[in-house]
């Protein structure tokens, strides 16, 4: 119980930190970028939304910094992020919720696939240390993880879209198609997701393999594994229930950091494939100097990562009885 409470506390502190960064960055940066942005949109915005934006970025306001800060925290917690300049007059929240499902689907599915595959490969690699499996797959994927995500995406487009013509070059579904829940449309979405998803999986899998393999090698030297062997337990039982279950724990606690890394790579992959998720949206916002949208996307990406980490904490509680102890 204490473990869960501590993790919840961490969740709140990190979210607060991200909001605080969001609040102070535009105010601290030299050259006052927010003022320049607002000046450019003077003609296009109505008086009321201009005023709201000025308040949000602390321009032309006689409120104290502290008052602005608390007003900002309140607005963020109640989901009031103002209007997007790129997609005017849409609200930022609406734009974000259009993009969010695409990224959650893409990054969520690929992270789970990469984690499971990477953990399995690392486990088997450590179990058959020095064998052909162990000397080919782990080094291969570790080298692949040194390549930039977006570059692997470019090469994938070159091979599978342009040369072979098997898969579409970009976007989330065939343009002009109505978004429906019919089988052909879902198949269309899957076909479009195939290359970006494959890119993320093969570049992110190396990290999981490396840590899992290392943990597993350490755990295999433990006395309880020797004991299990001496008892004559089956190899798969030792591998999964004895060694694997213990070796996976550090991997789970490293999940948060790795997820941040995967999300970072996914932003560029979305950009390369023009995939209509938050990463692509964020770069659009940057190009158009749409700071309200950019900042809100940053906040939502952080929030999504934090929620995923909470889920992983729950899994850790299931796998590791030590975290369940109340003392």
């Amino acid at each position, binding site marked *: 119980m204490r473990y869960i409470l501590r993790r919840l506390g961490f969740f709140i502190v990190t979210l607060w930190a991200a909001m605080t960064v969001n609040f102070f*960055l535009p105010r601290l940066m030299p050259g006052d970028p927010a003022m320049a942005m607002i000046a450019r949109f003077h003609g296009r915005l109505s008086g009321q939304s201009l005023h709201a934006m000025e308040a949000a970025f602390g321009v032309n306001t006689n409120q104290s910094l502290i008052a602005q800060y608390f007003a900002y925290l309140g607005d963020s917690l109640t989901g009031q992020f103002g209007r997007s300049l790129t997609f005017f007059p849409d609200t930022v929240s609406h734009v974000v919720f259009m993009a969010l499902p695409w990224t959650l689907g893409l990054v969520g599915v690929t992270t789970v696939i990469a984690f499971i595959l990477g953990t399995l490969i690392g486990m088997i690699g450590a179990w058959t240390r020095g064998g052909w499996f162990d000397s080919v797959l782990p080094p291969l994927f570790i080298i692949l993880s040194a390549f930039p995500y977006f*570059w692997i995406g470019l090469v994938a487009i070159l091979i599978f879209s342009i040369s072979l013509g098997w898969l579409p070059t970009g976007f989330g579904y065939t343009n002009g198609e109505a978004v429906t829940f019919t089988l052909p449309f879902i198949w269309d979405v899957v076909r479009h997701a195939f290359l970006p998803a494959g890119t993320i999986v093969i570049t992110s899998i190396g990290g999981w393999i490396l840590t899992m393999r290392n943990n597993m090698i350490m755990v295999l030297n433990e006395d309880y594994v020797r004991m299990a062997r001496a008892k004559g337990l089956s190899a798969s039982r030792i591998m999964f229930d004895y060694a694997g279950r213990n070796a996976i724990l550090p991997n789970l606690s490293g999940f948060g950091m790795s997820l941040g890394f995967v999300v970072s790579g996914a932003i560029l992959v979305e950009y390369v494939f023009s995939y209509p998720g938050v990463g692509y949206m964020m770069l659009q916002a940057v190009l158009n100097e749409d700071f309200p949208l950019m900042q809100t996307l*940053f906040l939502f990406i952080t929030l999504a990562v934090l929620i995923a980490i909470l889920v992983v904490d729950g899994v850790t509680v299931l796998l590791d009885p030590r975290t369940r102890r109340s003392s």
Partner: protein
Amino acid sequence: MSAVLPERPAKRRPAIVRGLSTLGQAILSNRKATVGAVLLIICIVMAAVPNLIAPGDPNAENFMPGQGPSADNWLGTTSYGQDIFAQFVWGARDSLIIAVVAGLLSTVLSAIIGVAAGYLGGMADGLLSMMTDVFLVIPAFPLVIVLAAYSKSGGNGMIIAVLVLTGWSYGARQLRAQVLSLRHREFLTAARLRGERSWRIITHEILPNMISLLVANFLGASVYAILTAAGLQFIGLGNINANSWGTMLYWAQNNEALQAGIPLWAIVPGLGIATLGGAFALLNYAFDEISNPVLKPARRKKRSKRGAPS
């Protein structure tokens, strides 16, 4: 065994020299480290003397645009009629400088925060650790984008500052753990009892014992810097007039090099980034094995060649 020999006051070389010679031996004894070092040396040569390998201005638009490989242009030309090979060679310097400087500064920041947290303990440790964990979890690249979008200068100084600010936390956490494990060793207790000052204990007793971890941290931070800087330049948040692999990719993407039939324009700089990133990653991977003997690859029949065991 040492009891046989009379205790001789051996001439102690400074810690740095000892560290470096161990490092050299370690690189030669591990195949991954050797490959990594060779790749790194190739990049260093390109960065140091690009004018000897590809003379002239790499941005000069002297050739027919959009050509494939030929005797004049080994890797073809860009849509602007620039030589891709020359751009590739000249691009190494930028990536290498960013990698080394950002890697070093991140390591220094990690060391300051990690060692302070581990050595001071108590409230200071609680606060610093919390800060480290928060930075570890906030997704770095979106934050990098936000920072770069606001600062707008696009120069290497800005990129390095942003990379250091977002890249120190992983190392700080590892170094703190190492300090905690060292804290109650006898040689530190002895130093404290001798009445050494904290500052001297940290620089003369703790840091020399963390050299391998510091090196590993530097390598990891450099890989992060290479990939993130390339990403930033690729989306146009760097200096788009610089000679760098990321900038090459930016122009290739903007001119749809893949669709236009000059895929080498996009492939070559990516390979450069991967070579440099791979060099650091291989060295790092090898160091993991060297500093943690349990992970050392099992070597058979090697011992007999090495002569009689002691």
